[in-house]
């Protein structure tokens, strides 16, 4: 009987342990990422630079280039994985992901339009949020009522909408003045080369992750179906609306930070569910942490593996994501 309880993973300790492990992993991955790069720096040199000591060059490389990029990478991964985990609950479907369903496509189009109009910063994030929300509404609206959507219908709708956004992106790129082109291109694949302000992403990621924990049990119920959730006392409509807005916000902030990085929201929650079970109180914060680790490590690879040539981080995540997606489809867990 005791065995059953330990595997049920509902005690505070059972949640604390994996989270503590993931926090450790997160710190390690960020440390690793900060010490890797085209300029070979020893960990002690990095540590000195972080404290504002050592050579000016080392300080510039660490403080101006690496640290902002590493922080952006982590936050982007956390945001996307969390958004993916939330959408999977909302749609009760492990294949849901901001990228697959065209949500980040909508955010990208809006962000490109913002660049065309010369908007930056919060205004651009706001546009991206509207794009993401519009896209989510379209997918849900066209795929039918939340309560009885079928997987196939949903996926097809998402795929078609993603393709539509893709066409709009190509159109905007074709019409854009040449001096705005290079800045725009990176929205297509997701790239952290230009990320130097991680603060907005962190300001969204941390509070949202913490505030989602008390909602975890309600989300557990929602994952079992809206009727069951309502029968056990969940305000289903309100919760679904909240999850929808939060997932759109997370996606929008991720897209304004790094363009549309694919498949993080799909891979990370799935891997975690295999290992940790499906209690959202654990899975949601774990997704934020593990997503952060994944993108941090993927971006480290992207900027070092064939240096000096730099890869967009989206290439690495897609290389991981596509086989995972196919495997999930194959196993029919949808």
């Amino acid at each position, binding site marked *: *009987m005791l065995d*059953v*309880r330990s*595997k*049920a993973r*509902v*005690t*505070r300790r059972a*949640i604390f342990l994996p989270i503590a492990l993931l926090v450790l992993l997160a710190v390690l991955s960020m440390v690793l990422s900060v010490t890797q790069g085209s300029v070979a720096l020893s960990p002690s040199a990095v540590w000195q630079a972080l404290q504002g000591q050592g050579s000016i060059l080392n300080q510039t490389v660490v403080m101006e280039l690496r640290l902002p990029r590493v922080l952006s990478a982590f936050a982007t991964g956390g945001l996307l994985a969390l958004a993916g985990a939330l959408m*999977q*609950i909302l749609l*009760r479907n*492990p294949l849901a992901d901001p990228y697959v369903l065209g949500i980040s496509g909508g955010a990208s189009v809006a962000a490109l339009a913002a660049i065309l109009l010369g908007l930056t910063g919060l205004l651009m994030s706001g546009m991206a949020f509207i794009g993401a929300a519009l896209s989510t509404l379209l997918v849900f609206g066209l795929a039918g009522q939340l309560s009885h959507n079928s997987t196939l219908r949903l996926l097809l709708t998402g795929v078609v909408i993603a393709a539509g956004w893709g066409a709009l992106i190509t159109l905007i790129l074709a019409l854009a003045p040449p001096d705005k082109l290079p800045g725009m291109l990176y929205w297509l694949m997701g790239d952290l080369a230009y990320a130097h302000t991680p603060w907005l992403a962190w300001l969204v990621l941390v509070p949202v992750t913490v505030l989602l924990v*008390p*909602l975890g*049990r*309600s989300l*557990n*119920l929602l*994952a*079992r*179906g*809206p*009727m*069951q959730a*309502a*029968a*056990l*006392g*969940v*305000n289903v409509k309100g919760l679904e609306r909240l999850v929808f807005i939060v997932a759109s916000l997370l996606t929008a902030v991720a897209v304004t930070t790094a363009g549309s990085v694919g498949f993080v929201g799909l891979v990370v929650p799935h891997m975690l*569910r295999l290992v940790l*079970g*499906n*209690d959202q109180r654990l899975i949601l914060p774990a997704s934020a942490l593990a997503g952060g680790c994944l993108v941090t490590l993927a971006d480290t690879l992207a900027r070092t593996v064939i240096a000096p040539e730099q890869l967009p981080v989206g290439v690495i995540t897609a290389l991981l994501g596509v086989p995972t997606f196919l495997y999930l489809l194959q196993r029919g*867990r949808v």
Partner: protein
Amino acid sequence: MTWLRADQLVVAIPGQTPCSEHALTIDFKPGEVWGVLGPNGVGKTTLLHTLASLTTPAMGQVMLDDTPLKDLHRTHIAQQVGVMFQAHQDGFPATVFETALLGRFPHLSPWDMESEQDLALAEQALAQLDLTSLVQRSLSTLSGGERQRAALATLLTQQPEIWLVDEPTNHLDLHHQVAVMALLKEQALRQKTVIMSLHDVNLAAQWCSHVLLLYPDRAPIWGRAETLLTQEYLEPLYRQSLAVTEVNQRPVFVPVAQVYKSID
């Protein structure tokens, strides 16, 4: 002691115009076991959903201890009223134990973790439903009957005052049919109210204290089971000729291959 009351209630069935003459005004009292009988599509499931405030009625209202359900917070309702659905939604994969533990949801605040007591309740419920050996199995790997029992275990863990159960014996073998009906009867003995929809009139005859007969074409009738479970009321209900016999002082109805003629 919690009372559930249907007050001039007409349920909303898609494609049907509600008729106030078919309204229900029933007090479901603690200790009673109600069987809701009627042919397919007459609205048995909709009635149970309406009683749980999952569906809005077309007319009238449902009261819980003299307060209309619509004025109550959903969590408060869930602390008193439990529902077991007939069709189990395919949500995310979950284990049998996790499923049973869901029943504690309305009794916990957001920051609470399930306590030892909550875990014990879930274990007890699973043991009562013969599922102890399956606790770690994923719900999706279970047979229909096992799923049905897991759903009942959730309800048992929830410990509501009012039990709304949609076709409790679906998919169950004979042994488990009896076990489940006995379990529901036991709840009534503990002064809970049990309301279940049944398609087997003989189960109602054996286990229910009260029945509600939902006719497709005339006003419903309700009352004590031994009064209403007769050929006179049941044949028009199912539009089927029935033969009746008696086993253990309870009536047993058998459909007979004979053209049913309406008395009207």
